[in-house]
């Protein structure tokens, strides 16, 4: 795997462990140290309420990853079910589902998420709903294409000839074949989701203050660019390094399993 990505990965894991071991309080405010430079008690300095930026970054990371994990779980389950049903059964169902897939595909996921976050009120649950609505389509497309390919393989036809029912074929042949491409696709989409979540929180539509979030910290830091530019740079660089790590993991898995990601069929 990529050395730079491994390095960032190690740094992030180290700080998460330190955070959990020492049980830093991300909401502890020290008012006479507002916007102070990096020091021994707060390694990346303090924010506009005198809270440790590092502690909040780690908390923001944990919050962000939790939400992204749930969204991935929800979106991939919905997407896989819809995609497999469309691909396997075909016909009228496939046409209808394909129409919806195309309708959702015609918007970028983040725009859809902004729209839904705007319609629903801000909050964690609504953030998860908004992001899920924006991201199930890519799973559905991939699952549908992959199912279509697998369905026409000789071993599936043989299994059918021997009298296997649909449920058996789906369980024993179609779903296992979906595993690796979906895992690779899922890894890449996690990177996109982290940016999307941060964007929504940046706009004030995601995780609400005082809870720490990467996007929310970015928004706060922009207001203090003149006084403490390191704040914005640390937060931005953290988000970028995180996304870089995950994309590198995706590349690694892609090469390691030697999978082909096919969307259209």
């Amino acid at each position: 795997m990529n050395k730079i990505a491994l390095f960032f990965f190690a740094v992030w894991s180290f700080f998460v462990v330190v955070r959990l071991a020492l049980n830093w309080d991300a909401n502890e405010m020290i008012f006479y140290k507002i916007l102070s430079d990096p020091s021994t008690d707060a390694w990346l300095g303090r924010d506009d309420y005198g809270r440790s930026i590092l502690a909040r970054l780690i908390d923001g990371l944990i919050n962000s990853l939790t939400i992204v994990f749930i969204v991935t779980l929800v979106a991939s389950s919905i997407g896989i079910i819809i995609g497999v049903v469309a691909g396997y059964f075909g016909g009228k169902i496939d046409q209808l589902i394909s129409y919806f897939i195309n309708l959702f595909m015609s918007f970028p996921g983040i725009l859809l998420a902004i729209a839904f976050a705007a319609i629903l009120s801000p909050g964690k649950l609504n953030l998860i709903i908004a992001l899920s609505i924006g991201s199930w389509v890519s799973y559905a497309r991939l699952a549908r294409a992959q199912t279509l390919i697998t369905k026409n393989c000789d071993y599936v036809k043989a299994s059918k000839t021997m009298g296997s029912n649909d449920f058996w074929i789906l369980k024993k042949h179609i779903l296992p074949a979906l595993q690796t491409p979906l895992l690779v696709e899922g890894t890449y989409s996690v990177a996109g989701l982290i940016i999307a979540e941060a964007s929504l929180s940046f706009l004030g539509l995601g995780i609400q203050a005082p809870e720490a979030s990467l996007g929310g910290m970015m928004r706060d830091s922009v207001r203090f660019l003149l006084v403490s530019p390191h704040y914005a740079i640390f937060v931005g660089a953290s988000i970028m390094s995180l996304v870089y790590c995950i994309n590198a993991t995706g590349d690694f898995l892609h090469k390691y399993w030697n999978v082909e990601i096919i969307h259209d069929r």
Partner: protein
Amino acid sequence: MKNNLSFEVFYLVLQIFGIFTISFILLHLVPGDPILIMLGESSTISDRVALRESLGLDQPLLQQLYHSLRGIFQGDFGVSIFSQQPVAQLITEAIKNTYVLAITSLMITLTFGLTAGFFAAKNQGQWLDKWISNSSLFFISIPHFFLGPLLILLFSIFLGWLPVSGMSGFNSIILPALTLALGLLAVTIKMTRNCMVDLMNSDVVRTARAKGLSEWSVMIHHVFRLVLIPIVTLLGMQFGSLLSGAVITETIFSWDGIGKLLVDSIQTRDYPITQACILLIATSYVCINFLTEILYQFIDPRMRHS
């Protein structure tokens, strides 16, 4: 092609209608009473009833849908709850600003993207090519909400050349336009370079050179025209990211466009504006996709007959 085009126009109208209906229904199916959210828990019942009536929310859903559709065809999007101005007026002003911003960044992308891609391909494998490729990789992966502050830090605070935010004069468009453009620019450079490298080793170019055409003529008439096809598709497809990027960029730079209006309206719970903004962004996105398709057929004659 004629048949094809009329079908596509029909599909476009269908799509816009679909967007409208879905957003309308969702907005009304969402749990929670918009009236209560707008007025707050402490409002009196008579106020709530009055607002509900004036917004027409007491009527059946289908009738409401019909009314707001009719209103939109007459250019009437309702009145802003917060500022009491007609929504149509607020939105026209905002969309104009957004398009100024978006078109400026598209221009930056096209000019610099094609030029840099061209030079990278020409000096394939040398330091210039490597440098362009590596720096474009950096700009692809940097999100708008970090690039914006970085540019402000560099050009406004350290160098003091450009204003931090706002909309005063020509100088203030440079930073937001750059923020929007750089990511797209990086993709464009990469694509132009790779396409040109492929093309320069292709039969088309070899034939053109064998005919004795000058290097310049080969570049303009053969390579460049063929490079334009994927670039137009790419830019059309990326327009959506430009629009969603505009939401963040406008917020950072206080640029009074549709994105900032949307975010502000969400924060002040100004439902008519929120709905109109979403509808407008979605519609312009679909329309741009449609125009890309048309432009595509114009550039590539092969597409007309397929």
